[in-house]
């Protein structure tokens, strides 16, 4: 299940999108990195919580972020808000098991552009990323 909002998208996207993966699960970070096959995406880093994600967003300057919600240190909703202050043009795909309507709306309201519910597989991940980059 995935949802998308067009608000806040840039029109002049770079040819290759630098992607940061944010998830407290090493297994999920690995699955997203291995599973994404989008020709325009290059994975540049992976963070295990929101605090790390903010530091890596400053250092690595990603264009795209996949964002977990339930994480230690700083949850994904707060991290979406904070990371957009670093780069308001970031495209953010929230990836979470909490795929109920209220959480999807909360994520989109915070500034995320898409939502991929868990469990996911490579096909649904790549569909969600393609939608995000349209």
């Amino acid at each position, binding site marked *: 299940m995935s949802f998308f909002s067009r608000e806040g998208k840039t029109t002049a996207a770079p040819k290759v999108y630098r992607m940061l993966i944010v998830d*407290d*699960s*090493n*297994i*999920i970070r*690995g*699955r997203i990195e*291995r*599973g994404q096959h989008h020709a325009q995406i290059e994975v540049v880093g992976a963070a295990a919580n929101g605090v790390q994600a903010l530091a890596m967003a400053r250092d690595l300057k990603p264009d795209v972020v996949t964002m977990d919600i*339930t*994480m*230690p240190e700083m949850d994904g909703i707060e991290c979406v808000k904070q990371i957009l202050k670093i780069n308001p043009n970031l495209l953010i795909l929230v990836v*979470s*098991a*909490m*795929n*109920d309507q*209220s*959480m999807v709306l909360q994520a989109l309201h915070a500034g995320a552009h898409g939502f991929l*519910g*868990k*469990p*996911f*597989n490579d096909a*649904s991940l790549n569909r969600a990323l393609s939608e995000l980059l349209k």
Partner: protein
Amino acid sequence: MDAGQIKVFLDGATRYFVETVGSKAEVGSPYLIDDARSVAGEFTGAIGISGRHRGTVYFTADRALLMLLMKEVGEQNMTRENMLDLVGDVANTISGNARNHFGNDFMISVPTLIYGQDALHLPKGIKSYALPVVWKGYRASVIVVIENLD
């Protein structure tokens, strides 16, 4: 918990395997347990529940099932840490999906990871339901220990 609420977790366990690896797990009839000894696997992920409900959702499994599941998702680093991470992710996914039934005040914690069959101890004073899962011949369990505070 009533039958409809328990079915939420049965469906969640089924959905996890179908969506993640494209093969169905058989989820058996739930039954009450007094302690975890009969169902505990070597690796357990536990998600704390708060809000209008209180309790814990566990996913517990042995090494063989987890190694096969990791292989199916392309994970080659089959360390103890990654196996713990995986049971935590399964428990997180089943618990998070349950919000579609229980509502947005069904709050879930980050996973607590438990290693060793003897280390899994269930809360006292709340009914504990074991939901047996068999995937490709390997057994695991979802354990649901939740009470409604209304």
